């Protein structure tokens, strides 16, 4: 395939670009970044692979950025014998147009054009190679995978054939390989696991096996049920026999039991009858006994009545005695009481006489005491009078004393201070002193103190006047004052002078002492009773006092002797005491007698009652006995009892006989046998019922199974299994054949490929040595992948190589492939922006490589750095500009 021309219109950022490629050799298409170099390659792919209406992402992405129109791609391509111009417009108004120029001119449009191009390419171009021989800036730098490229294989086959000198393999082989693979893939996945037809056959067989097993189990279930039914039926027959035997035995035992029961019935009846006879006998014997007892009873009662009669009479008698005793006691008591009354009177009389005597004595004593009191009261009045007469008091007396003292002192003072006048009368002379006549007898002296102007006048003789000095006057004044005070006090006291005053005072004290004495006596006398009370008592005593009469014996008229009267009182008292005691005694006696009487009366009454009751009972018993005798006489009763005894004995004998009979039949063992037989029969019946039930169940089960067509299902399943197995074996055979064929073919092919590897490796090494030097070697596997590079004896795996080395090796491998393929099979080698990692030295060497392979094939190099490829001498250059 060769690309002659590529025209892009409205493609991505490209408005229009038209590039013509040289038919052969290296062409370097250069342009700045984003001028759409890569887009050209992409556009070619879209043109060849996408339909014009395609909505694929890849197509959408290339919509023009600058106008709302459809992207258009036109390419002129020659491929094998074909040469054609192919145009497609995408997005808007999509359109496809194909003009085939050679071998003969044809025109196609639309999908027809598309299909035609696909067909032509499929016929003439190894599209795998076309894709493999690219170094794209977008793709990772993997080793070129050239293994699937038939063109290369063919080329290598040619080379290998030359080497091996073997007939050249043709298309047939490849076709065969494809078909083998196709056949293999009918049964296996690429990794050799069973799939589609083969796994389906396996699964079908497995499912069929499972179904058969399931349905066989279902049928086996039926068979088992049938078998069980047979077993159960057999069992049931046995059980029926068993149950019949048990029933027969039961009947037999029941009969025996019936006999026993009948016998027991008879025995029971006989027992009842015996019981009845016995009780009749008991009754008649009881009647007889009762009759005898009744008779004895009556006798007893009669005796009792007699006894009671006697007792009653005795009681009545003793009652009468008691009554008499009581009358006597009552009389004695009355007498005692009258004696008591008399003695009481006497005592009273004596006592009043003594009282009168005492009163009189008391009155006498009171009168004398009153007289004393009156005398003392009189005395007290006199004293009181005396005291009252005296006006002097203790205070007054003290004042007098004081005044007297003051006068004394004043007198002394006057004396001391006053001119002292002493006159001694030589002959009797009358003198007047201050007017006071004084007769002085011869020899007498008079002296006085002169305190005041004193005129001494001897009448006619002389008149002298003494005038005291001033101080004597004053002193005389105070003496005067004191004297005046004394005088006043004395007058107040009624005393003439101080001495009388003092006497008066002593008198007053004496009187007061006498008054106190008399007062004390009076108080002692009236301490217990006031005089008035005494007087009152006296008066009452006097009032009580008989007017003389009491003081004398009324009868004798003699004054009674108090002592005799007192003796009389004592005597009377003693007599009275005695009378009281007697009276009490008699009263008690009478009381006792009353009690005794009551007791006896009660007893007598009680006995009488008893007697009456006993008599009534006796009468009743007599009546009863009479009545009974009327019903049956004593003799009759005796006869009946005898007869009954006989009958009872007979019945008893019968019971004994029947009991023996029963015992002979062994009722316990019969009963045990019956219970046993019944149990056995019940168990047999239960077993039979259970068997019937089980049988019914199985039958029901079978009925259900019968409607399910289980055998039919099993048959169907077996048929299916048969078919599945046949199918399985058939497919297995085929699958194994395909597997074997594929593996053998593959093995041989790989072996063959291994031989291809040599020419390919030779070419890679030839070209590689230009770049890497003479020591360059590579390992190439049967898939034509470069596994490792050896340089100067050092081997490095491809993956571990540097980016630059990988890139260079990748290009070398592709160019080697391109160089190997036949001329008619060649496709353009496209190298997009590669060798960016390559240094200048290597670049020059790569340029040599390009020159070395630049032959018939096209090598299209897209780059932004055309200088990288400047050394490629054979290269033609096309420069792109942003449009």
């Amino acid at each position, binding site marked *: 395939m060769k690309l002659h021309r590529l025209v892009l219109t409205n493609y991505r950022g490209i408005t229009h670009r038209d590039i013509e490629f040289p038919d052969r050799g290296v062409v370097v298409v250069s342009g700045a970044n984003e001028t759409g170099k890569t887009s050209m390659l992409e556009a070619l792919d879209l043109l060849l692979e996408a339909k014009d209406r395609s909505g694929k992402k890849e197509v959408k992405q290339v919509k023009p950025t600058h106008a709302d129109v459809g992207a258009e791609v036109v390419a002129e391509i020659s491929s094998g014998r074909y040469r054609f111009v192919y145009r497609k417009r995408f997005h808007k108004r999509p359109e496809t147009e194909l003009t085939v120029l050679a071998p003969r001119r044809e025109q196609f449009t639309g999908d027809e054009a598309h299909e035609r191009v696909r067909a032509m390419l499929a016929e003439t171009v190894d599209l795998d190679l076309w894709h493999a021989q690219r170094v794209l800036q977008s793709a990772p730098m993997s080793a070129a995978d050239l293994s699937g490229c038939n063109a290369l294989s063919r080329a290598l086959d040619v080379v290998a054939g030359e080497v091996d000198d073997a007939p050249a393999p043709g298309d047939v082989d490849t076709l065969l390989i494809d078909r083998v693979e196709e056949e293999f893939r009918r049964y296996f996945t690429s990794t050799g696991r069973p799939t589609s037809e083969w796994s389906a056959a396996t699964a079908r067989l497995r499912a069929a096996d499972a179904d058969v097993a399931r349905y066989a189990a279902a049928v086996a279930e039926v068979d088992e049920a049938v078998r069980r039914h047979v077993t159960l039926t057999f069992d049931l027959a046995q059980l029926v026999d068993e149950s019949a035997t048990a029933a027969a035995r039961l009947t037999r035992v029941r009969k025996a039991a019936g006999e026993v029961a009948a016998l027991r019935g008879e025995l029971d009846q006989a027992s009842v009858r015996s019981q009845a006879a016995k009780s009749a006998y008991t009754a008649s014997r009881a009647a007889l006994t009762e009759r005898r007892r009744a008779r004895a009873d009556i006798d007893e009662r009669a005796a009792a009545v007699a006894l009671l009669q006697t007792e009653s009479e005795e009681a009545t008698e003793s009652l009468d005695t008691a009554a008499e005793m009581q009358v006597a006691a009552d009389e004695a008591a009355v007498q005692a009481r009258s004696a008591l009354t008399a003695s009481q009177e006497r005592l009273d009389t004596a006592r009043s006489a003594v009282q009168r005597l005492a009163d009189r004595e008391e009155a006498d004593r009171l009168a004398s005491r009153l007289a004393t009191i009156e005398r003392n009261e009189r005395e007290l009045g006199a004293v009181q009078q005396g005291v009252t007469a005296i006006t002097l008091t203790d205070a007054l007396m003290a004042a007098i004393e004081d005044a007297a003292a003051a006068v004394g002192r004043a007198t002394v003072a006057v004396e001391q201070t006053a001119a002292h006048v002493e006159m001694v009368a030589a002959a009797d002379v009358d003198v007047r002193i201050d007017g006071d006549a004084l007769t002085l007898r011869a020899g007498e002296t008079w002296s006085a103190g002169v305190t005041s102007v004193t005129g001494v006048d001897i009448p006619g003789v002389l008149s002298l006047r003494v005038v005291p000095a001033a101080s004597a006057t004053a002193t005389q004044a105070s003496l005067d004052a004191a004297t005046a005070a004394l005088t006043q006090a004395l007058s107040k006291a009624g005393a003439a002078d101080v001495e009388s005053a003092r006497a008066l005072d002593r008198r007053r004290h004496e009187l007061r002492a006498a008054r106190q004495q008399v007062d004390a006596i009076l108080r002692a006398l009236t301490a217990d009773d006031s005089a008035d009370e005494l007087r009152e008592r006296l008066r009452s005593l006097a009032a009580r006092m008989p007017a003389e009469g009491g003081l004398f014996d009324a009868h004798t008229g003699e004054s009674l002797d108090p002592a005799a009267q007192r003796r009389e009182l004592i005597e009377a008292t003693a007599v009275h005491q005695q009378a009281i005691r007697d009276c009490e005694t008699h009263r008690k006696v009478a009381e006792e007698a009353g009690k005794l009487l009551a007791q006896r009366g009660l007893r007598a009454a009680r006995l009488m009652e008893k007697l009456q009751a006993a008599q009534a009972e006796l009468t009743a018993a007599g009546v009863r006995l009479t009545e009974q005798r009327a019903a049956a006489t004593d003799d009759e009763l005796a006869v009946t009892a005898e007869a009954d005894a006989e009958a009872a004995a007979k019945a008893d004998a019968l019971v004994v006989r029947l009991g023996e009979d029963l015992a002979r039949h062994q009722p316990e063992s019969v009963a045990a046998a019956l219970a046993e037989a019944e149990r056995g029969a019940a168990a047999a019946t239960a077993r039979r019922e259970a068997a019937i039930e089980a049988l019914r169940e199985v039958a029901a089960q079978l009925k259900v199974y019968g409607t399910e067509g289980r055998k039919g299902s099993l048959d169907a399943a077996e048929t299916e299994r048969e078919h599945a197995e046949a199918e399985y074996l058939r497919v297995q055979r085929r699958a194994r054949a395909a597997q*074997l064929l594929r593996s053998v073919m593959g093995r041989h092919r790989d072996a063959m490929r291994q031989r291809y590897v040599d020419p390919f490796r030779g070419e890679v090494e030839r070209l590689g040595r230009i770049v890497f030097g003479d020591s360059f070697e590579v390992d190439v596997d049967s898939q034509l992948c470069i596994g490792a590079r050896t340089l100067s004896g050092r081997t490095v795996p491809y993956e571990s190589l540097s980016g630059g080395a990988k890139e260079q090796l990748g290009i070398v491998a592709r160019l080697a492939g391109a160089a190997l393929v036949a001329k008619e099979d060649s496709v353009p080698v496209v190298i997009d922006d590669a060798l960016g990692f390559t240094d200048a030295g290597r670049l020059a060497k790569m340029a040599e490589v390009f020159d070395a392979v630049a032959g018939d094939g096209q090598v299209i190099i897209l780059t932004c750095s055309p200088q990288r490829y400047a050394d490629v001498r054979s290269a033609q250059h096309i420069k792109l500009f942003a449009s």
Partner: protein
Amino acid sequence: MKFLHTADWQLGMTRHFLNGDAQPRYSAARRGAVTALGPLAAEVGAEFVVVAGDVFEHNQLAPREVSTSLEAMRGIGVPVYLLPGNHDPLDASSVYTSPLFVSEKPDNVVVLDRPGVHDVRPGLQLVAAPWYSKAPTTDLVAGVLDALPGGGSRAGSAGGGVTRIVVGHGAVDILVPDKDRVSLIGLAALEAAIARGAVHYVALGDKHSRLSVGSTGRIWYSGSPEVTNYDDIEPDPGQVLAVEIDESEVSRPVRVDAHRVGAWRFMSLRHGVDNSRDVADLDINLDQMPDKERTVIRLGLTGSLTVTDRASLDACLDRYARLFAAFVPWDKQTDIAVMPADGEFDDLGIGGFAAAAVDELVATARSAGDDAEDARGALALLLRLAEGGAA
């Protein structure tokens, strides 16, 4: 007096080797054979039909099978006496006692559900020996014979004017190798009963092929009315016996006519194949077979073939496998050695590694190793693929 003697209908039977739709057709044909008894009975003037056992294939039938079978029997018109056989014994799961059968049983169908005499009409009795389990422990037929009047001593006058037909099922002792099997029908007793005139015809079932037993001419297996097995096992199936008993004579002479009612064939074939001509012969033979869709072929092949011939044989067999109701390899009778011939793969136009691979496969195929068969298959496949993928 005429009646139809048939047996072994085995309704509900399936043949697992039948292809796809062949099974329903085969089942329909079996019912059709029953249906065909109606017109046949009318044609020969049969009073009734006895089915001597194995009316049904088994007791566990789908309800549909029971209903359609009873409907077919109703169509026969004359009374049909059914004897429970070893396939459909009167056990607890018996189809004859199933509610469906009981409720749908037509009036003309009578189940011989107890051993002994069943009156068909005055002067005509069926003596039935039904099976009660799949494995009886006695000779059932001998059992019912013993109970018949006129045993032994009164030979000759035993019949007493009554015609008796024994209806039994099972193998007669002279026909089987293991004579000790307790359920075998003793021929001696049968012949003795016939000899003394107690019975006049013995209608047997169990053998699917028509067969007269003994020398009396009165003891017959009718065979099944439609084939059930290959002709090497069942040589003469597909027939019903029309039995005529002349009651006017004391000896009750019997005349038995076979009438074909079956339409299917089960055939066993053997063929030698050693080259392409033999394969072509086989092709022609098979091609000429009539009624392929009602024919089952069991084919045994022997010989030695090249891979190419084997491939053409397989292609041929594949074709007939589609045409016949069933086309079954007869493994026991098949022995084909496939040997790649020299130069057999030279003309394939392959070379290089493919040729080397073929050489290896041929070598393996010629060896006796385990892979030989696979290698032959691989070679055959290679041929097919190389010739443009005919498959």
